[in-house]
């Protein structure tokens, strides 16, 4: 019965958020973008609303959170009751505060990592496809060699060598993920560089940067955007896995991945607190993929 009710409540929430987000976006959007938002599916508007909410929380974390990020406030593992509405963790820090700051740290780091991986990977991939020859060969074989090493082992290795700051974490995971993006971007671009319009642009005397940015990239966007949504989720998992191994985001910085691990034992006592950070990750993952699907649909020309 409870399950049924929660499913119904969940669906109702989904539709409510979806519909209201869509009408809100439509009202705010500039005139020539209005049709875009009018035709967007409910899933996409729900996803957008969730993402915007996460961004809001991440940006204004210090204002929203009831306590400081690393403040120890009282007993460990307190139950859900005022003033700690979601209880406390094993050090006695406020759970709600942890979740709010986690949005900032985890999402921020994951986004920065994915963005960096995409920038580097797709630029190199498009460049290799465009130039071809020895550049393509050497870059691709180098990437092949990197991909031959299991990702987790490789990032562990790099993190042990370079130390575990947030910056190295971002750089290392981005480097590992960029190899995957490179592969995709290169194979997509190889189909594009043989088109007549690329030949025409080359004959016009266009430079490398312009060819990549204006001629190839817009045509390679659809698969890259789809990959972005997927990659973003993998980066999340990678950060959580590294945190679990003690090489990721270090305490006292709040991070959803480590929050799941630290509180995991509570599950055996029937407490659902560790599911909250896990749920936060899941919700964002789903939301990102909803939006990406919508963008993909539009980019593939199925919009009309």
């Amino acid at each position, binding site marked *: 019965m409870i399950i049924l009710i929660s499913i119904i409540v969940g669906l109702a929430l989904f539709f409510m958020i979806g519909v209201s987000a869509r009408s809100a976006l439509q009202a705010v959007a500039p005139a020539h973008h209005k049709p875009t938002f009018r035709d967007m599916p409910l899933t996409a508007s729900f996803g957008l609303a969730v993402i915007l909410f996460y961004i809001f929380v991440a940006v204004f974390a210090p204002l929203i959170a009831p306590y400081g990020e690393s403040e120890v406030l009282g007993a460990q593992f307190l139950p859900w009751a005022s003033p700690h509405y979601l209880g406390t963790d094993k050090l006695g820090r406020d759970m709600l505060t942890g979740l709010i700051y986690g949005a900032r740290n985890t999402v921020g780091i994951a986004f920065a990592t994915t963005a960096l991986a995409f920038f580097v990977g797709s630029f190199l991939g498009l460049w290799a496809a465009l130039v071809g020859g020895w550049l393509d060969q050497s870059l691709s074989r180098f990437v092949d060699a990197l991909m031959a090493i299991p990702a987790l082992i490789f990032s562990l290795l790099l993190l042990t060598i370079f130390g575990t700051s947030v910056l190295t974490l971002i750089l290392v995971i981005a480097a590992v993920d960029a190899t995957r993006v490179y592969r995709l971007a290169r194979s997509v671009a190889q189909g594009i560089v043989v088109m007549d319009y690329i030949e025409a642009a080359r004959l016009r005397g*266009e430079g490398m940067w312009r060819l990549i940015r204006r001629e190839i990239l817009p045509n390679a966007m659809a698969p890259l955007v789809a990959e972005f949504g997927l990659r973003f989720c993998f980066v999340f998992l990678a950060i959580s896995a590294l945190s679990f191994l003690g090489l990721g985001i270090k305490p006292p910085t709040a991070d959803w991945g480590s929050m799941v691990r630290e509180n995991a034992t509570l599950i055996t006592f029937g407490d659902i607190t560790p599911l909250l950070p896990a749920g936060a990750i899941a919700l964002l993952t789903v939301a990102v993929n909803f939006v990406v699907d919508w963008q993909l649909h539009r980019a593939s020309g199925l919009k009309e």
Partner: protein
Amino acid sequence: MENTRLLTIKGLKIEGRSGDAWHEIIKGVDLTLHKGEVLGLIGESGAGKSTLGLAAMGFARDGCRISGGTIDFDGIDLRTASETRRRGLRGKRIAYVAQSAAASFNPAHKLIDQYCEAPVVHGVMPRKTAEDDAVDLYRRMRLPNPDAIGFRYPHQVSGGQLQRAMTAMAMSCRPDLIIFDEPTTALDVTTQIEVMAAIRDIVRQFGTAAIYITHDLAVVAQMADRIKVLLRGDEVEEADTRSMLAAPREDYTRSLWAVRSFARAEHPSATGIPVASVGNVTAGYGAVDVLKNISFDIHAGRTVAVVGESGSGKSTTARVITGLLPPREGEVLFNGKALPASFKARSRDELRQCQMIYQMADTALNPKLRLRELIGRPAAMYLGLKGKALDSRIRDLLALIELEPDKYIDRLPSELSGGQKQRIGIARALAAEPQLIICDEVTSALDQIVQEGILKLLDRLQNEFNLAYMFITHDLATVKAIADEVVVMQHGAVVERGAKAEIFADPKEDYTRLLLSSVPEMDPDWLNRLLVARSGLTPND
């Protein structure tokens, strides 16, 4: 005639979906086909020829649905028959031959395996008999080496042979009806004749009824007993081939006839230094020489048409001039000065002087850029135009190619028709203010009426800006319309070159004569006469 009726279509309506709305593609067409009769379907692209052809098999493409009318095939209502029943008919009693045999054959299987599939699946004959039958039909289709050709893979035989093998395959179950969807459109004129003759003979031998879809009037005149003209899903007129050719009733049909009559006056003969001069060029890929010692000149204000079959090296010549393929020997002169062999070594101004228009506007225009940028980029790049000046230049160019600037400037290529896209290709070339424009089969992918518009536009621009054109084509009707000089190529060498009038009136070489005589004419007896003339025998009809 009543009892010999094979296919009766009445009030057929087919709708296609775009977004959430359905709109009619075929708007109530009637069609009757008797046993052993060949009906020609002609019209521009988008007229619904192929859709109607497929409907004769009770089939509608994805995103289309048959929304009204009846399709009766030999007493079977194809609209209400079950899918199993329809599938039983397809391949067995109704067969289909697609435009591109190369794309329709499965590249992973031998021709004869694909031939045997239909008869074996439909239980018409066992595999062994089917194989013998295949060899027999290959022989009747006049394929070379009929005993062995079936054991080759599709990529091992030429396009014309593939098209004949496909027709043989369609014949495998001795169907009552074959639908030919532009079977010779992708072929060279010389190959087209062989395929046309083979198709016509085999259809007559077996008394098969056929629907022959094409946009080429001269072709349909050779093949069909009756012709039906379609325009935007509606029937324009239908008549006996001879009477339609002699006296078309409708204006639209007449306009289809008239297209071929476009011709412009020859420009004054060449003087001074040629704009571009190809001097003793030998070039190729890898160890193979594709071009062998090619030479010709292109003068300002004149059009040089380069003709030949596919594989004759026409496009490779263009690649040498543009610098995409540096020649092994020889050089390209521009206004008397030698150009660097590779485009990478050429200056921006040298690049600007020579522009190119491609055959497929679909792939030659970046689908993600708006017309403003597509046309504006060369102007901004070469002439350094910015802001207002650039905007007004783009508008001028759009006006020049007869597209309304305000309406089109912010469109994407996908929002244009085929002919309009080709106009954008022309505008992009013009934006660079070049001296030479290379037109690589620019009209081949277009309908005849649209072709005429493009040719007229090119002609007008040539007079206005004193442009030199190098016009690559395999279509001799286009050459007749627009060329001043003709260069005939075969196997990478220039066979013959000279003024258009001379070449057409008095060809010196055998190959030129063969090429010229292969262009289909509107006369329904043309193919018969030609075959008689070539073989010295009477055709078997």
